[in-house]
């Protein structure tokens, strides 16, 4: 069955094919066309960590394709009684055809995939991976730039705990991107990820200075410094608010440059950027619907017609 745990589960060709399928599903995602391709199927939405966009976009994606959704969170379920992930997954395996899982422990998605037969989509495991976010990020980048090849991308903020940046950087180097990794020293991308990136990619630069790369970037990907991943408030306080992107920073930026953010934002991406032509983050959030539709169809073995009516 077709799990999606990390971006390594997809070839470059499969990524492009999925983006094309997501493009065809746009009218369905917007609610302009009803195409019950997943009628009769049940999605188990398993969120053991907070979520707004990911949970809701998976739910919308499933429902707009005619399917049903079961929601599980830690509160109000037997997980609060100490039930193991393994046992929880046995129940989900019986109650649904496919499951999406977000969990605070790294490795939880792969573990779930090993535990059951139904396909598992990783919606974020600890500070590990977030491949469905990467798919919607790539969709957004391709929409803006026409192509994914050879772009100059700046990733800013929490690169240590930021699972969106881990998954996205893995994918981008496979399409020949030049990456600038901007973070405070304590939040640098983990060394094993940087070494994987350097083994596969062209140019990877690590720096603490955000301003130097703005004017040459094709994509500036801002991320929140995640308080919830820090062991204590003092460590968080040292780096909170260290990067702030404002509209005035973008005066000399390329016209085609886009600013992205997986959201939620705190103070690293000022509201003044929202009204600039560069801001793509809200559209990025919506793009979660067509891309997750494409991923659900893929994992359930459902073909999406060339023309969806």
């Amino acid at each position, binding site marked *: 069955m077709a799990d999606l745990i*990390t971006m390594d589960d997809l070839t470059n060709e499969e990524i492009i094919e999925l983006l094309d399928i997501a493009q065809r599903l746009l009218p369905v995602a917007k609610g302009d066309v009803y195409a019950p391709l997943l009628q009769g199927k049940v999605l188990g939405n398993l969120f053991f960590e907070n979520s707004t966009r990911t949970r809701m976009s998976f739910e919308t994606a499933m429902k707009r394709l005619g399917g049903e959704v079961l929601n599980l969170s830690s509160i109000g379920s037997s997980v609060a009684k*100490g039930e*193991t*992930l*393994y046992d929880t997954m046995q129940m989900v395996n019986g109650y649904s055809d496919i499951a999406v899982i977000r*969990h*605070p*422990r*790294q*490795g*939880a998605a*792969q*573990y779930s995939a*090993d*535990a059951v037969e139904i396909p598992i989509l990783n919606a974020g*495991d*600890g*500070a*590990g991976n977030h491949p469905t976010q990467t798919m919607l990020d790539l969709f957004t980048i391709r929409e803006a730039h026409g192509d994914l090849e050879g772009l100059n991308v700046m990733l800013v903020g929490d690169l240590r705990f930021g699972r969106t940046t881990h998954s996205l950087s893995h994918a981008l180097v496979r399409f020949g991107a030049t990456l600038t990794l901007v973070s405070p020293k304590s939040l640098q991308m983990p060394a*094993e990820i940087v070494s994987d990136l350097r083994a596969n990619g062209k140019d990877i630069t690590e720096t603490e200075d955000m301003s130097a790369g703005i004017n040459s970037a094709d994509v500036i990907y801002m991320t929140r410094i995640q308080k919830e991943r820090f062991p204590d408030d003092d460590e968080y306080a040292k780096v909170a608010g260290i990067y702030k992107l404002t509209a005035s920073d973008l005066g000399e930026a390329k016209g085609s440059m886009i600013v992205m953010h997986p959201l939620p934002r705190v103070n690293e991406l000022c509201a003044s950027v929202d009204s600039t032509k560069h801001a793509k983050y809200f559209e990025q959030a919506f793009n979660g619907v067509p891309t997750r539709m494409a991923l659900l169809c893929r994992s359930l073995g459902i073909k999406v017609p060339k023309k969806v009516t």
Partner: protein
Amino acid sequence: MRRVTAICNGTAIDHIPSGHALQLLKMLRLDVGRSNPISLVMNVPSGKMGRKDVLKIEDRELNQEELDRLALIAPKASVAIIRNYAVAEKRRIDLGEELVNIARCSFSNCITQNPNEPLPHKLRVISADPLEIRCAYCNREQDIDEIADYIL
């Protein structure tokens, strides 16, 4: 100069990377609470390696599962099963592609930290030389020097 005498029956492990014999004993769980006579030399000259350690464990023939654990620290070690003062068998140490229930992941936030989770602990061998091992679930790289602390 012969530093270690021949043993009658047991297992001889030669060409252990210099300084790692004690770690090997720990991994084999022979470091405490056992009565097998064990001879050990460390940092002795070796034509092949420059310096090496050697272990001889009497009255115990290590099985393949135990040898697989050795492969984490001494993948190029030579293992001989001794019977009646002669080499009866030579055993290969083969790291393989995956170590199942040999050692647990060292990452504190890995899903496998919960001892109640029943699926096997799995470490993947990404490369044998240089040795790189990652948890099959969380993909964190394991510190080879500390892996003996996580033996199951």
